[in-house]
């Protein structure tokens, strides 16, 4: 049987011409999330079924009765995208077994934002990962509930401004740390896990493709910059996402069958202040705040290096 997912490594020369999305979608100017989604779908190709949780990507691609999607796609609630994806995967297996479906290797792609993944969809995701269905989960993390008006989520980083954690004198911005979603997923011991961002488009596409080739669940966490909610100019979206990686605030790595593989270390690591000061949602930070965040970033990265050094 022909494989559903192309195995070729993606570079600019071998960039797939395929697009799963049509133009005319209603994303904001300079949306980093729809860009990440477009690139991921390019890597996956047309033999997919997409199950989407509620979120920006659902709202902007399907203003009913229109749709941007050129592949089979369905929208379900925030909390059950992984459960529905599991069901579709099971249905495909059953149909193939009964000989009623040719090409039963169609890949199931489940996607959600940070709200649909680390907040509301957490338990159905955990269940699907544990049961080990054959799917790729794409989490597009823009670090708040952006399409309803920038409300905080558990993925909003510490100190960030949102409309529900405004800048008060006692509590300037969010007081709690960002939930370690990737760590939680890692503890399900799935075959493939990776972090990516659209600032490194080929890295993102190749990780999605590698994830889709494993049998069983794969999880790709994508940091998707949001110009509206992060308070950045639309043309700086890619620059800011790149700074997140260059400052080690958002390190790129893979976990393949439990083995951590850290992306190539950058030549000159930048202070995290460069990443934070580029965004309006962090403009209130004091030198002390910046120093504390820098320490958190260094500690997280040291831990990651230790994990990657294990045989």
């Amino acid at each position, binding site marked *: 049987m022909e494989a559903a997912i192309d195995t070729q490594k993606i570079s*600019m020369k071998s*960039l797939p011409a395929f*697009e799963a*999305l*049509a*133009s*005319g*979608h*209603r*994303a*904001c*100017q*300079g*949306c*980093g999330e*729809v*860009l990440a989604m*477009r*690139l991921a779908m390019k890597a996956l190709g047309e033999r997919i079924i997409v199950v989407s949780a509620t979120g*920006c990507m659902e*709202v*902007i*691609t*399907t*203003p*009913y*009765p*229109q*749709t*941007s*999607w*050129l*592949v089979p796609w369905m929208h379900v609630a925030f909390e059950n995208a992984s459960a529905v994806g599991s069901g579709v995967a099971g249905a495909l297996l059953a149909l193939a077994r009964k000989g009623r479906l040719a090409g039963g290797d169609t890949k199931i792609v489940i996607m959600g934002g940070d709200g649909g993944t680390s907040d509301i969809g957490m338990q159905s995701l955990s269940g699907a990962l544990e049961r080990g269905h054959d799917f790729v989960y794409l989490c597009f993390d823009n670090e708040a509930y*952006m*399409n*309803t*008006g*920038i409300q905080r989520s558990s993925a909003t980083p510490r100190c960030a401004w949102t409309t529900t954690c405004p800048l008060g004198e006692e509590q300037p911005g969010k007081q709690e740390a960002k939930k370690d979603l990737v760590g939680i997923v890692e503890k399900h011991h799935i075959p493939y896990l990776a972090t990516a961002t*659209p600032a490194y*488009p080929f890295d993102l596409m190749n990780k999605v493709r590698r994830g889709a080739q494993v049998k069983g669940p794969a999880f790709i966490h994508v940091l998707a910059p949001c*110009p*509206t909610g992060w308070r950045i*100019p*639309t*043309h*700086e*979206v*890619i*620059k800011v996402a790149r700074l997140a990686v260059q400052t080690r605030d958002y390190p790129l790595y893979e976990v393949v069958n439990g083995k951590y593989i850290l992306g190539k270390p950058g030549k000159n690591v930048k202070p995290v202040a460069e990443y934070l000061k580029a965004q309006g949602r962090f403009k209130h930070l004091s030198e002390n705040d910046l120093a504390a965040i820098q320490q958190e970033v260094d500690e997280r990265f040291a831990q990651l290096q230790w994990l990657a050094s294990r045989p």
Partner: protein
Amino acid sequence: MMEIRFHGRGGQGAVTAAELMARAAILDGKYAQAFPNFGPERRGAPVTAFLRVSEQPIYLREKIESPDTVVVLDPTLIDLVNVADGLKPGGMMVMNLAASGRGALAKYGDQFQVAAVDASRIAVETIGIPVTNTAILGSLIKACGITSLKTMEGPMQRRFGRLAAKNLLALQRAFEETEVPEAPAAPSPAAPAAGQEGCTYAELLQREALLVWDQLQIGCDIDLPGSTAAFHTGNWRSAGRPYIDREKCVSCGFCHVYCPDLAMNFTDDGAIEWDHRYCKGCGICAEECPKGAISMREESHEQ
């Protein structure tokens, strides 16, 4: 009760304008409410916000369908959305129009009372950026009263902090520069509003129209893949378009890879082509072009 509808683009502050005015009216001892049209927040897309002001408590909680006054923050919206939709005959329109763009006055002049002001210029000269939401409030006060420039100081101070002085200056200047003509003696009856009734499916795909419950298909299935392509998001651009310098362009494709809207594409012979129909004008391509071959210029610039 006075009902006012604001037309702007996402990010221009139409919602903030309605809210500031409501706060000022409340300080004056009136009742007021301000709220946006519910929908996803999309920078650049046409948005509406609503304001009700009354001497009596307001029990209505719905969108304003037939406003007394319409406020237009962005002149490019006039040809794009029906800003006069439902406006009462002889009603007030407060428009941000450059001196060169006063053609719109003729379009609406015999039906409505059109107060025009070059709010974009005032905003650039006072605040430094073309954000017109505070300037246009000065015009609205001149045209409709509602509150006074003095009362606006408190809410503006609270909202803008150290930027309040500049915004108050914009408010003041717009108040002074707004021309309010006499109301038309016999306003011609408004054209019947184009409803969704009798609209073909193809026409529906062209417009920003959500269906109501009894028009939904069971399961909400959509059998036209990629149908948003009929909806051209190019008219969201308000701050320039990318211009490709063919001398410098090497067709490397990074603008194509980084474009969220599929507006930079390869032609059959491998060149990069800009698609004006969908480009929202974010400027990522210009920022990321490794050869510096793309620059953001004014719309009118010849390619």
